[in-house]
């Protein structure tokens, strides 16, 4: 076992999650594939969204997988950096807008 919580090689073991619950795993795979297939959005657009979300939830497995996937879908570092900024802006904005609740409390408690 590694000294670190994260080991890059573990991404390749994702399918082991199907060992104790194979039916659920198959349903997940089918849904996942359908999600990322081209539809109203292109495969590249979906991959960039996934990259942004990966940074928002800070999943190193997804960041690894979708960094490669974005490149293989024809994206580049410039587009991918903008996607990360979108994720950061949403996360930062989400914190900031909750400040309105803070203001509500301050007004209630203050003369």
């Amino acid at each position, binding site marked *: 076992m590694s000294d670190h919580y994260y080991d890059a090689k573990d991404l390749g073991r994702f399918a082991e999650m199907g060992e104790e619950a194979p039916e659920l795993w198959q349903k997940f795979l089918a849904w996942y594939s359908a999600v990322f297939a*081209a539809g109203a959005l*292109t*495969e*590249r657009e979906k991959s960039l969204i996934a990259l942004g979300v990966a940074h928002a939830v800070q999943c190193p497995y997804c960041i690894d997988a979708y960094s*490669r996937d974005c*490149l*293989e*879908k*024809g994206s*580049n*570092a*410039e587009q991918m950096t903008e996607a990360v900024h979108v994720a950061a802006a949403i996360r930062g904005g989400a914190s900031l807008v909750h400040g309105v609740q803070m203001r509500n409390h301050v007004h209630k408690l203050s003369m």
Partner: protein
Amino acid sequence: MSSLRFRSHPLSTAVAQRALLAGLPLPQGFEAALARSGLSPLHATGIEILQMNLGKKCNQTCRHCHVDAGPDRREVMPDEVLEACMNVLESTAIPTVDITGGAPELHPRFRDIVVRAHEMGRHIIDRCNLTILMVAAYEDLGEFLAAHQVEIVASLPAPNGRQTDAQRGDGVFERSIAALRRLNALGYGTRPGLQLNLVTNPVGAFLPANQPALETAWKLELQRRYEVEFNHLYTITNMPISRYLEYLVDSGNFEAYMERLVQAYNPAAAAGVMCRNTLSVGWDGTLYDCDFNQMLEMPVNHGAPRRIFDFDVAKLDTRQIEVGTHCFGCTAGAGSSCGGATVS
């Protein structure tokens, strides 16, 4: 950057490259993959393209080059080999001659080849690096190619300077755009009969994107930003040979990239590989199943004549193909060939 040969790099010989590839433990070998797909042994289906490699001299030293071409290379196809190629074209019905290198336009008899092949009524492809068209002594090359309806297949790895220059050298993107505008002004990419196709290799250790999707995106991007038009985009997978192999090793991507290629093996792509309809002629007259086998010094085999001087269509057009680990490059994903993806 200079060529591996100039630097006496450990990977400058085909022997060293083949040994490195053969020594890599992979989940399956290429022959085993073919056998599982019902394609072993792999055979040619006819010679539709005679690909002539005019030599390794080039005005660029691209990072990913499988030829190890560059200004410091001296190998140039001699007259006797060139004449043998012309004789083969005259005595057969091979419809297409595909001229490559290095920069094939640097060959002193490049124009002679084009003129003669055009007179024979063959379809001619020039594998062009674009910047050659901006070199002072070659500024009329575009007009010459247009006059002979040569199909130009031009290398452009990305519709931006950062990635293009990273792969092909400083300033290459700017000169490439200037060359493309010059070609558009001559009618290439805009008028029927003057085909201008672009070819892109990924700028790094990953597989190419979906070819039609990328073509759509590039047409918009190059038109919008640079007012450049082209006919089609071909995606080509980088092959683990010569300088691209050096890049893979130096960047620590060699094993992961090869595993990716094996993981992405596609039997449909294997059925459509270009070696099945192409015969590659080396600068010295040696015959190969493809340009990649040429750079790994793996001549045609299994009873097929090995030199252009001994050309025999009956022994070559359905020959058994010589394969190796590097072949996973042409069979990954949607497949790869000199004409782009092999699976629609």
